[in-house]
């Protein structure tokens, strides 16, 4: 038995169908060669991450492993079998399990246990072994009590656990996770990752995780970075992360604690070795040691938090309540919320906490059962969600972009699709054209795509078209549900760039997110929602000032704040009495702020 479970050499693969488009798992078209000479090998029993921007060929690679596609040329050995050898086709496939990104599209069964049984049934496992495998797999992922439940009733996190159970019941040797955590909230994601890690240890599995989540990647033993169909980098996480520039050059990012460490070390003109980056503790030790011995010559300027003046109140939610009649349980419970003009307000909370229900009230798509949603016009009039006559106008001022808005596109050209909302208004063709261009510019779409079909575009571009379709109505308040979900790190960054630009132009933005890190970085104000109620709200630096304060309102600290909190604690031991500024929103400013505090402490001179 060889020590490598996967061994491939010079793999080339291109999607043949050039009339119709072919998409990867995240909905991006794949043109030309998806794999262009990929050579790599995966050691047996390891836990590996495959990273790469969208369209880099990582999903294609995973599909080749499970022989869901066949390579054009090159050699591929999986579990010691040649993937081209028809005799071993089932030997490979039966021992590889694949968990996909979208939980809905991989569930075959109507009930939980029927779905888990689907795989082993295909393998022809007889009862009672079949029953035993199903029960054990469900037990393992913690869904035993829900065995007879309808699969459509499960939450996203439960659905992915179900997919894992379905894979486990087939007793695989190799488990492929294709962005399996992308659609989960942080808590569900952490649970999923713990489950995977436990499984690997106890079941002697090899796990290959395709992911965009750098934190997830940092938990792995080995990372492969794929770019343009080739292996770009490989190594232990800390080895890969030591090459910051290279990682960024392919549109990926580093885990935030490594970014911060690198930034501080750079200021001190010290470079980190992979050993330094191994764990958060080693990062902290390295920074502490460096700041003790080698301070930068130039003191960074004092970082000013750009806290804008609060604008006038533009919307308010008062005593809003909402209950579904077919499910018992209150979704919104007497909720109060004010929204101020010009701010970026982030609504954060777990899946099912009522965020989406709240925002569908904001533009009157859902009408208040109890309580009121009010929009305050500039001329002093008010528009209320509960008054039918006023809802139409309310919708003009408050634009709503739901999650995965690219699924709502339908027109032949991008231009027509964006203009759809304007058709009901009596505008001249020139006006419409002007406003479409304006909206396209706002989301950073090039004019050349105006006459293209929206379905030819990449996933990220489609999302922008859908956003433009709402912006074209010139809303004063733009409400976004998870605007960055499913995008790769570069796409996410660009999306938040668009949001920042909209804010600069005076649009009030309300965004729903389960990503605390992004909320903390980009929002002026954060509102934490828990079980249909506002649990806490405030500026990010207020909410996350200290671990204790955040914990008291049941918040998890964003990773940057969390790491920097630990770092500051360590620095306080070395420099007793040191005073730190409030935490900053991004790692660059936080690095400056920390270095500055140390210089001030040691030099005693404030610059």
């Amino acid at each position: 038995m060889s020590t490598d479970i996967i061994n491939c050499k010079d793999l080339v693969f291109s999607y043949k169908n050039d009339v119709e488009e072919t998409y990867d798992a995240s909905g991006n078209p794949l043109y030309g060669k998806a794999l262009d000479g990929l050579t790599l090998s995966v050691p047996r029993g390891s836990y590996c991450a495959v990273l790469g921007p969208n369209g880099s060929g990582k999903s294609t690679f995973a599909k080749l492993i499970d022989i869901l596609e066949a390579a054009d040329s090159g050699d591929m050995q999986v579990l010691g079998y040649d993937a081209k050898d028809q005799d071993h086709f089932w030997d490979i496939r039966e021992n590889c399990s694949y968990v996909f990104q979208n939980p809905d599209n991989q569930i075959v069964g109507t009930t939980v246990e029927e779905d888990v049984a689907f795989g082993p049934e295909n393998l022809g496992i007889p009862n009672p072994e079949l029953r035993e495998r199903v029960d054990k797999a469900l037990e393992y992922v913690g869904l035993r009590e829900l065995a007879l439940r309808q699969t459509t009733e499960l939450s996203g996190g439960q659905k992915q656990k179900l997919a894992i159970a379905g894979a486990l019941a087939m007793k695989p040797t190799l488990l492929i996770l294709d962005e399996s955590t992308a659609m989960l909230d942080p808590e569900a994601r952490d649970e999923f990752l713990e489950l995977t890690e436990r499984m690997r240890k106890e079941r002697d599995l090899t796990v290959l995780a395709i992911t965009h989540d750098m934190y997830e990647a940092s938990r792995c033993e080995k990372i492969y970075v794929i770019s343009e169909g080739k292996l770009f980098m490989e190594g232990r996480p800390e080895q890969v992360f030591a090459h910051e520039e290279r990682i960024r050059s392919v549109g990926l990012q580093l885990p935030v604690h490594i970014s911060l460490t690198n930034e501080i070390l750079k200021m001190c003109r010290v470079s980190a070795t992979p050993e330094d980056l191994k764990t958060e503790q080693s990062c902290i030790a390295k920074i502490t040691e460096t700041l003790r011995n080698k301070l930068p010559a130039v003191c960074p300027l004092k970082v000013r938090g750009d806290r804008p003046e609060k604008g006038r109140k533009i919307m308010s939610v008062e005593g809003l309540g909402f209950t579904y009649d077919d499910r018992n349980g209150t979704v919104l419970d007497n909720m109060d919320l004010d929204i101020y003009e010009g701010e970026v307000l982030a609504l954060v909370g777990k899946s099912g906490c009522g965020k989406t229900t709240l925002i569908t009230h904001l533009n009157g798509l859902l009408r208040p059962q109890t309580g009121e949603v009010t929009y305050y016009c500039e001329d002093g009039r008010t528009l209320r969600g509960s008054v039918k006559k006023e809802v139409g106008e309310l919708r003009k001022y408050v634009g709503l972009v739901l999650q995965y808005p690219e699924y709502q596109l339908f027109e032949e050209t991008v231009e027509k699709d964006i203009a759809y909302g304007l058709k009901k208004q009596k505008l001249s063709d020139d006006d419409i054209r002007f406003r479409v261009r304006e909206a396209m510019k706002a989301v950073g779409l090039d004019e050349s795509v105006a006459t293209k079909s929206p379905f030819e575009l990449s996933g990220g571009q489609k999302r922008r078209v859908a956003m433009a379709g709402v912006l074209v109505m010139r809303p004063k308040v733009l409400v976004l549900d998870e605007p960055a979900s499913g995008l790769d790190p570069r796409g996410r960054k660009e999306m938040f760039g668009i949001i920042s630009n909209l804010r600069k132009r005076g649009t009030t933005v309300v965004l729903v997110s389960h990503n605390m890190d992004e909320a903390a970085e980009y929002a002026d104000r954060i509102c934490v929602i828990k079980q249909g109620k506002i649990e806490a709200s405030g500026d990010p630096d207020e909410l996350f000032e200290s671990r204790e304060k955040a914990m008291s309102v049941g918040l998890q600290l964003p990773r940057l704040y969390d790491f920097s909190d630990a770092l500051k604690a360590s620095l306080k031991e070395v420099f007793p009495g040191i005073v730190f500024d409030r935490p900053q929103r991004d790692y660059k400013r936080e690095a400056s702020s920390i270095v500055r505090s140390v210089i001030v402490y040691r030099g005693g001179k404030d610059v």
Partner: protein
Amino acid sequence: MFKNVSLGRYYDTGSVLHNTDPRVKIVLYLIYLIITFMINTWAGLLSLALITVLQGVAAKMPPKIMISSVRPVILLALFIFALNAFTQRQGTPVFQKGIIMVTDEGLKTAFFMSLRLIFLIMSTSILLTLTTTPLKISDALEKMFSPLSVIKFPVHEMAMMMSIALRFIPTLIDETDKIMKAQASRGADYDTGNIISRVKGYITVLIPLFISSFKRAEELATAMDARCYRGGEGRTKLNPLKLTGRDAFVALIMLIGAGLILAADFLVK
């Protein structure tokens, strides 16, 4: 707007009817279907109503669920009632104004036709959809039609397609709801305007729905491939269908019920 549709919805109460072999339920369902259209006396109708209610109790169905499964057809039932009441000319008139005439015969037919429809839906729900998962229904059909595979009829494939279609109904309903909301927030209006503009409005829902359904279909096919699906040959079943004494007992009770309805229909005048 689709939240009340119960088509293909399964509601688990763990009753004896839930655990009855689906083949037995399908046959019983067919029998009750025929009976529903055979009866034409009040006594028959009353006993059918009584036995349908008893079935509901046996299935431990909460009345709320029963009502919600009948709700979508109430409008149709009312329409059938009106159609029959106003068009039947036989019998003695009980109401007459101008050319509108309602006769006692007409009323009776109207009652029977509309109630038949409601009982039809109720027994479909109790005997099939609410108490039997779609996968079991397709299992049963697969078994019942398996002789047809001799003449190369793709029985297993048909059954698999059916169960997948049923499994995706709630998912697609959710999706439709989401797309409608998205289009409504860019100014689409599905409730006002004339019929042409309304139909046109639905295009903005249908196109995205089709596109995403194709995408789902493709992903599901890949996922099934990855889970080693290779047709019906050599496949085992977690819950293989097996006729037991209890199934026979349920069948017997239900047949007695059917007999009682027919007896009431023929004998009591």
